[in-house]
């Protein structure tokens, strides 16, 4: 249990700077999710907290202490890797116990801690098995168990669910959240999946090209994105962007979420569009349209609402309060 503080953290590989100064303040017991597209530097940031990458500039503090130059084992962290990184020749028990054995924990305590973790993760029947004899979800649990038994101050997760199938991912997501709550451990979780980010995070950090574009509670970030990138990245289907000039406004870009647009007859509303395609998903229907200017817009409407035919002209309306205006630098105005 500890706070984690990143102060103007930077990372360069050779001459290429990949992290351009990130500041994050993580409270004790908080669940922080770092989300962003691939290549945005989110994994690098996590690995710097773990001590697997050196910090080029800036400061990483865990529990108030500067850990820049400490080995991973001396940082009081545990990490869950994307491919689980289980030791293939060791049994589940030995996988979980390895860190404790190195730390010269007494045998009886190792036994007790592994048993507790195994019970928590429903791994008790599998303690004698090798990793290859387990399913993906079970391997994932062993990786978590290995993190838990060390009773670290901070959990680090590097895309831990991306190797699982969709159904298992939802289940493990809930389990991770539950576990983190029960143990009260500070967690830093990296993912490219915005649904994971939205559902798990107390606060999320949206990374874009080596910068933290926005840090905040998921719903705040969703409702009030600070940059054009965040508005486009968070939300599925993504925010519609159009040229404000088309509807008589100012700013460089105008963003409106699909659920905030309403369909009316042609000629009504703020703008006219042509229907390209409709995707009925049951509870809701996504309607893809094209503006005369060429911009593509998606409208999300209730599944029970009438679906306009392909090629129809429709009018689109929205509340002024739902408009998000962005300046030429991509920032909200």
């Amino acid at each position, binding site marked *: 249990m500890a706070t984690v503080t990143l102060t103007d953290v930077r990372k360069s590989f050779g001459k290429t700077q990949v992290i351009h100064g990130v500041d994050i303040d993580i409270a004790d017991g908080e669940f922080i999710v770092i989300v962003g597209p691939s290549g945005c530097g989110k994994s690098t940031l996590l690995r710097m907290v*773990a*001590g*697997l990458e050196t910090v080029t500039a800036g400061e990483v503090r865990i529990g108030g202490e500067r850990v820049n130059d400490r*080995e*991973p*084992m001396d940082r009081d*962290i*545990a*990490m869950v*890797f*994307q*491919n689980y*990184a*289980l*030791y*293939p*020749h*060791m049994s589940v028990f030995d996988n979980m116990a*390895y*860190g404790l054995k*190195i*730390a010269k924990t007494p045998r009886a305590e190792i036994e007790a801690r592994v048993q507790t973790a195994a019970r928590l993760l429903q791994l008790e029947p599998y303690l004698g098995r090798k990793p*290859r004899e387990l399913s993906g979800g079970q391997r994932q649990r062993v990786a978590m168990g*290995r993190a838990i038994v*060390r009773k670290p101050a901070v959990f680090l997760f590097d895309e831990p669910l991306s190797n699982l199938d969709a159904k298992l991912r939802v289940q493990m997501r809930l389990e991770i959240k539950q576990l983190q709550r029960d143990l009260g451990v500070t967690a830093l979780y990296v993912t490219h999946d915005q649904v994971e980010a939205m559902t798990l995070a107390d606060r999320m950090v949206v990374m874009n090209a080596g910068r933290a574009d926005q840090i905040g509670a998921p719903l705040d970030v969703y409702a009030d994105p600070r940059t054009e990138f965040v508005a486009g990245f968070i939300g599925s289907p993504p925010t519609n962007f159009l040229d404000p000039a088309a509807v008589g406004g100012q700013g460089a870009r105008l963003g409106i979420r699909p659920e905030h647009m309403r369909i009316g007859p042609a000629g009504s509303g703020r703008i006219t569009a042509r229907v390209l395609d409709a995707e009925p998903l049951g509870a809701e229907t996504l309607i893809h349209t094209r503006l005369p200017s060429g911009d593509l817009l998606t409208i999300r409407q209730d599944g029970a609402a009438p679906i306009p035919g392909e090629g129809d002209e429709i009018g689109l309306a929205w509340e002024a309060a739902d408009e998000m205006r962005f300046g030429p630098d991509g920032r909200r105005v």
Partner: protein
Amino acid sequence: MTAPARTRKAPPPGMVERRGAGLWLTHAGLILGVAFIFFPIWLAFVASTVSQPEIVRPPMPLLPGDQFFENYRKALVSGINAPVALMLLNSGVMAIGIAVGKIIISLLSAFAIVYFRFPFRRVFFWLIFLTLMLPVEVRIVPTYEVVAGFGMLNSYSGLILPLIASATATFLFRQFFMTVPDELAEAARVDGARPMQFFRDILLPMSRTNIAALFVILFIYGWNQYLWPLLITTDPSMNTIVMGIKQMFPSGDDIADWPVIMATSILAMLPPVVVVIGMQRLFIRGLVESEK
């Protein structure tokens, strides 16, 4: 067994079904091949069980005689220049020394090259690689000079040390280590393992199939060394068996004791066979157990 006439279902994909004449033909071919390869060994065995006059009198016997125990006892205990038991021991020490030494050295050097960033890492790698081009036979004169200078003639260290560095094995372990996911090393670091702990607890057990395979190859390589032991062991008590056989051939007017020489040949063949069969189990089990 003849294939019963039945309506045959299409074989499952990926399986080859062979019945009838084809089966017999392939087996006949294989048996013929085995007989062809095995015949000289059989002759050697027969020759080791008969008496000297029986060998030299044509036609050569094709069935074992009654001198088996007599000839083998004579070979093992007294031999011609040195007892074969002693030569077997020398060869065993040399072959095991070379195999184990090569494995240890190449494991460690591959570990260094793959997992550590040190200055001139690539240079060292290529230097090791370069030694592939310099087998014992090419560097034999300078190597002899060095070994003689260290006073290692007629000693086990002289037999083993010059042959102990192995670029091939280093290269093999390097390739294997590079297939081990980086996350494994990182997980071990997070678990608090120091580099040598990671090497011992994780890399070494993961390499055991490779080690078994290499041991077989290197043991046979060491066992079959001929030129090097011939050069540096002048004392018959340090002779290895492969060169020892040649030393048994008579010079001048002496009469070759063929039954004893043949018994020695058969004895020289046995340890590699034992190693291959013994390690094969480990090796196949390792292959079956290996990770996807």
